[in-house]
């Protein structure tokens, strides 16, 4: 039994992947809670798709991915605002138009024959290929994200609870939403390395959605979400080691299993409370 656990740890790739997913798990768990409470899961997923061409362009010209992603997300946000305001489209349609076009452009760049082969990894991630630099970058970004979340914790809580009360409490709701989206974007940029553009939404949303079924206070919810994210990461990496499945996708499947367990637990709790009343 012990050998089963320790054998993968003998490999550098596994250790680095575990380190990477731990960092990602902590950050995603925390910010994921706000994504779920503010009901911006679909926006987060769209953001991930929207910054894809930025990543691809950066990879093609050899620029740092973080920079390409940052440009990509700003471009996507700007275009969405234009589509909503100028075209008068509903947010739903505007996001669909902008994201589809941007994502298509990214795919065009990524999959045309002259682009280097590493581009595929941007789509599906390369968790087992995490380098020490990746881990350190993720940690640095993670600390920044967690720091801002800590500072704004009470205000995020207040506005998420009652948006209209924001101005009376001295909070600019617009600025707060912008900061939140910026933090989500930063987390996406970091998580893309491990999970890829297509799957990153899972670690942003899954652990927090699961934690919500289990916890009724915000701080325990954040801790549970981080724990679930890390546990799923570890499970996924071990599954990948023994079953030879793709690492990123395995992590996502593990996340789903945790979510289903949490949802089942939440459903039984709901029935118990109803019975008690």
């Amino acid at each position, binding site marked *: 039994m012990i050998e089963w656990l320790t054998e993968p740890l003998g490999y550098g790739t596994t250790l680095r992947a575990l380190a990477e997913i731990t960092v990602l798990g902590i950050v995603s768990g925390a910010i994921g809670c706000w994504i779920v*409470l503010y009901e911006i899961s679909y926006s987060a997923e769209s953001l991930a798709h929207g910054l894809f061409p930025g990543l691809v362009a950066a990879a093609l010209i050899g620029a740092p991915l973080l920079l390409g992603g940052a440009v990509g997300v700003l471009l996507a946000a700007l275009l969405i605002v234009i589509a909503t305001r100028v075209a008068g489209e509903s947010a739903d349609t505007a996001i669909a138009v902008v994201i589809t076009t941007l994502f298509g452009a990214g795919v065009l760049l990524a999959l045309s024959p002259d682009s280097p082969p590493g581009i595929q990894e941007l789509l599906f991630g390369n968790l087992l290929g995490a380098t020490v630099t990746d881990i350190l970058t993720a940690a640095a970004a993670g600390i920044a994200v967690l720091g801002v979340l800590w*500072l704004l*914790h*009470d*205000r995020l*809580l*207040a506005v*998420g*609870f*009652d948006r*209209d*009360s924001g*101005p*009376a*409490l*001295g*909070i600019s709701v617009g600025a707060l939403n912008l900061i939140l989206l910026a933090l989500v974007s930063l987390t996406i940029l970091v998580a893309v390395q491990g999970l890829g553009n297509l799957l990153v939404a899972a670690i942003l949303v899954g652990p927090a959605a699961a934690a*919500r079924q289990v*916890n*009724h*206070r*915000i701080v325990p*919810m954040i801790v549970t979400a981080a724990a679930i994210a890390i546990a799923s990461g570890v499970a996924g990496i071990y599954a990948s080691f023994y079953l030879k499945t793709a690492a990123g996708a395995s992590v996502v499947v593990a996340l789903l299993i945790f979510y289903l367990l949490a949802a089942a637990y939440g459903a039984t709790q709901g029935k118990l409370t109803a019975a008690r009343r």
Partner: protein
Amino acid sequence: MSDTTSNDPLFAEAADMAAGYDGRPVLTDVTFDVKPGETIGILGPNGGGKTTLFRCLLGQIEPLIGTLVVNATSATVPQSDRSRLDYPVTCLDVATMGALARLPWWRRPGRADRAKAGKALELVGLGERSGDSFGELSGGQRQRALIARALTAEAQLLLLDEPYTGLDTASTALLDQLIADLAADGRSVLITTHDVDQARQWDRVLCLNGSQVIFGEPADVLDREVLEATYGGQIIAIPGEPGYGVLPADHCGDDHDGHVHHGHTDETP
């Protein structure tokens, strides 16, 4: 009833005010004032301008015409049934949110602020439930928790938006008492309601229906003509019941269709 002297400065004063959105007024001819320690009922159909008035008092929108002077910190207490019941906050968390109004953006509420919130909860009668989840509270308790939030923000002018909706008789009585206590403490409370008889218990009433219909003491101003102008509906006299009942017109709000407004709250919780 308050016992402050008439020499104390007014909390708010409006003169010929009109307000609206995108340059178009939805509320006109507003002239009233709010003395410290006063309770004012606001009557009128949905869409008649009550929300707009609250927004003006909070400073969220500027009047288009006329003047509005507000000399007190104001806070609004929304209908509690619009709050999210599955939000991971305790009663104390909600009350502590009010402390943010007095803190610069880089400071988080500390122990002193939480203590202040705890005292506010005791004031509204929720001292023992401070650790409970907000969603576990009853409708009336949620309303009072939101009032505690306003008190923690040290608001002197409280704007209650239909706080009696869905409350049973016991909770209604508790809320009545709380409002009276707050007024006795020197705070002023504006309450929107659809219950005409309920409004008679307060110091003054303000009737809004797109424009101001009347402002004054209920005994003086709440007559048939005023109610008809406010609600645009048929007035009927209910035998054996005090006051007049109002049959609302179509625009009086979905949950009141066909119901007669009279002394007792007959809304289903």
